């Protein structure tokens, strides 16, 4: 098996995550789609690190994980705040700025 299989798997996971962001309405599920995309990218980075024999890819994947953790904290705080004021976690209901 060549390492390209890992890259194909990561591409599929990324596409599925992007479709989740486009198709689902629940803000939390949309956010999980973003996480899936980040994970797919990490898998890609780790595979490239192995392909090139350079650990930089793994280090960048590590940084992606840390940034993802920070992003999740803020994103979920925003979702909770919107839920408190609007009583809904659906992305369609956040349309107060609509004329």
């Amino acid at each position, binding site marked *: 098996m060549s390492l390209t299989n890992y890259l194909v798997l990561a*591409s599929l996971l990324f596409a599925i995550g992007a479709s989740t962001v486009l198709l689902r309405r629940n803000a939390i599920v949309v956010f999980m789609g973003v996480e899936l995309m980040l994970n797919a990218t990490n898998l890609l980075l780790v595979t490239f690190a192995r392909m090139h024999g350079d650990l930089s890819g793994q280090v960048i994947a590590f940084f992606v994980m840390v940034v993802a953790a920070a992003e999740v904290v803020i994103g979920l705080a925003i979702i*909770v705040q919107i839920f408190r004021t609007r009583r809904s976690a659906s992305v369609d209901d956040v349309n107060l700025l609509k004329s």
Partner: protein
Amino acid sequence: MTFTSTAATTLAGVATALTDGGKTSSGEAALFWVLAPLMVLAALGLVFARKAVYAAMSVVFVMISIAFLYIAQDAPFLGVVQVVVYTGAIMMLFLFVLMLVGVDSSDSLAETLKGQRWIGIIFGLGLAGLLVTVVVSSTFPVAVGLDEANGDSNPVGVARLIFGDYIFAFEVVGVLLVTAALGALVLTHRQRLTRHIGQKERSDARLASGHTLTPLPAPGVFSRSNAMDVPALDPTGAPLEDSVSRVLRIRGQEREFGVVAAEIEAPTRTASDPEVQR
């Protein structure tokens, strides 16, 4: 000590080296072909699952499988971090927020943008097709493998890079984490718009309203009846309505004391009747 050495040998056994042609070992191929279809199925579960908790559990499955693949790909440090950070912290945070927001908050199926679903499906399929085509059709160099880079074990190699070439990025990321923690505190802080109501105010309000201050009386206890639905008797023998649970009263499941008393007395009288005894 023995545990760490066993863990190290296990990880070394799982992490397999590449052959000369840049191919993986057959054990790793087997692991991949078992995990990859399951991962894609679980990821599709994220798109199609009706309930958000099911979606979260399928994402947890994908993330743990990715940790397996990291360890198989000579990245044991990232594999452990993946389990600890993603499945341990991030997904648990997601589950907490799901419980906070309400598990039954299901998706609305009404389309607010016309044709958005079909555009989304077409975009997803197109993106998958595009990425897979690019990956498959491009030529990659012969894979080197990480045997040389992982010479002093993988965590040591990663640490040399993080605290060497990437030290500035590492410090910036530390600042980012502190900022994120502060931001979460500020965002979830609830501003008090009304005066704080403490224990004293509550007790004063209760006294002023004139309701019963003591706990309500317990329901009547009779040895031959389920006593929850029968009112207790006050010293004069009158039933106390308040002693039966409000739920039972609203449902109409309360029983009159007179009915129960008749039920209880009837067998007692026959038993004490001398003719029946004979």
